[in-house]
């Protein structure tokens, strides 16, 4: 057995020290620039933080792929929907006439908008792919109002870092950072393939976040809440999905 040489020991020590110092510096930088996701703690925290930070540094403003009209799936898959509660059924029976979106939290002018009012505010469409974490996908045209337009109307305060969106069904909520909330393809969707958005696909109002996996596109949205921190909202992990063990940031 040859003893470990002094040179090796020295090199190893320098490498280890540089590594620790580098990690500490990276952590400070990540915190300063908001590159740590709400679920960035625990054993999977480093991986999640690397992924989220890399995406935000690489392509904060990149656009999700859009497809020609001919690629719209003839057989989209609506995925299972839990049985609706009585309140939802009442809305459905009335043709969702009274469905509203409430915008509150850290905004200058809290709002409540009906779907026609949303349409009047701004309308945009995109042909993008819904990508499920399970592996399946389909392409559809999504017509809606950019979240950015709604937030501009409400006037988000400068310290806002996340937009929480809440579904009618209990426990259905998620959140976006401002890069995704203000992204031009992030839509509050009320139309699909030239028609109204069917209930199975999230009608009357669904969040569409095409740069992330399908579970981020929460169905039956009723509320947007602007906040500067996810602490104190649920368990502070940023979404119901994250509380159930699924990553908050699903842009991978």
């Amino acid at each position: 057995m040859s003893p470990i040489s002094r040179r090796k020991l020295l090199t190893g020590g320098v490498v280890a020290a540089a590594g620790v110092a580098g990690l500490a510096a990276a952590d400070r930088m990540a915190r300063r620039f908001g590159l740590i996701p709400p679920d960035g703690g625990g054993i999977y925290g480093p991986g999640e933080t690397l992924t989220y930070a890399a995406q935000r540094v690489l392509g904060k403003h990149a656009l999700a792929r859009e497809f020609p009209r001919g690629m719209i799936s003839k057989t989209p898959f609506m995925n299972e929907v839990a049985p609706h509660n009585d309140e939802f059924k009442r809305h459905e029976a009335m043709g969702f006439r009274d469905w509203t979106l409430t915008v509150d939290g850290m905004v200058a002018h809290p709002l409540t908008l009906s779907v026609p009012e949303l349409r009047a505010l701004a309308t945009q469409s995109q042909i993008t792919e819904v990508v499920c974490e399970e592996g399946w996908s389909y392409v559809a045209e999504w017509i809606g109002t950019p979240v950015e337009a709604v937030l501009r109307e409400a006037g988000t305060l400068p310290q806002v870092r996340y937009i929480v969106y809440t579904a009618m069904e209990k426990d259905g909520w998620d959140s976006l950072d401002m890069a995704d909330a203000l992204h031009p393809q992030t839509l509050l969707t009320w139309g699909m393939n030239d028609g109204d958005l069917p209930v199975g696909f999230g009608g009357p109002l669904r969040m569409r976040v095409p740069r992330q996996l399908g579970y981020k596109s929460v169905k039956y949205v009723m509320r947007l809440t602007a906040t500067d921190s996810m602490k104190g909202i649920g368990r502070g992990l940023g979404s119901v999905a994250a509380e159930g063990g699924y990553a908050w940031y699903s842009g991978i």
Partner: protein
Amino acid sequence: MATAVSQPKVTTPRHSALVRVTHWLTVVAFLALAITGGELVISHPRFYWGETGNVNMKPLFTIHIPSSRDTVPTGYGYVMPDQNGWSRYLHFEAAWLAVLTGVVYGIAGFWTGHFRKDLRPARGERTGGAYWRALRGMRPDEAGTRSYNVVQRTVYLGVIFVLFPLVIWTGLALSPGFNAVFPFFVDVLGGRQSARTLHFFVSDLLVVFLVVHVVMLLLNGFWALTWEMITGRVVARKERG
């Protein structure tokens, strides 16, 4: 196996520290990736070609196993428990470990001449006969105990420079965020579902490599060879029989 070779005086380690450290980091990352990847397949054991694919569409092929989702028609009357949450977290964390390890290994491998000296088949070895002799288990020369034969070299180079880059590429092509930044990554593969199917096949090839690799260790002295990869020191040849 050939007759026992007398133990040469160890002057340099069998495997450099770089190779040993990156090897074991890759082992950890790859096992995590393979296990979680297999788990993720269970949530949709159907594969498609092209951009889109779902249960309303005809699959390219189906793996006939039960699924962890009741929306997938499998023919089984039950649904497996959902393990996708932690599997996904671990898959991507392990992918970072694999990629970062691969970057260090790749740069250092060229820098130190590891690829050129240890893995590139020697000029005279790039013949059908040399490959045949190596496959038959005959060592190319007396140096064979301290270096890889031509088949090993070729396979290792293929894993390092073809399969690993491909599995990372096809995996990144499944990231909607990454696709937004670099759409050609998925487009050149023929679409998202093609990328997923290719990711599955390349992963399968890597698992086949792992199985063969471990079988070869078992045939040639598992603990002695594993010890070499841990300490870098050659264990007396006679122990290998």
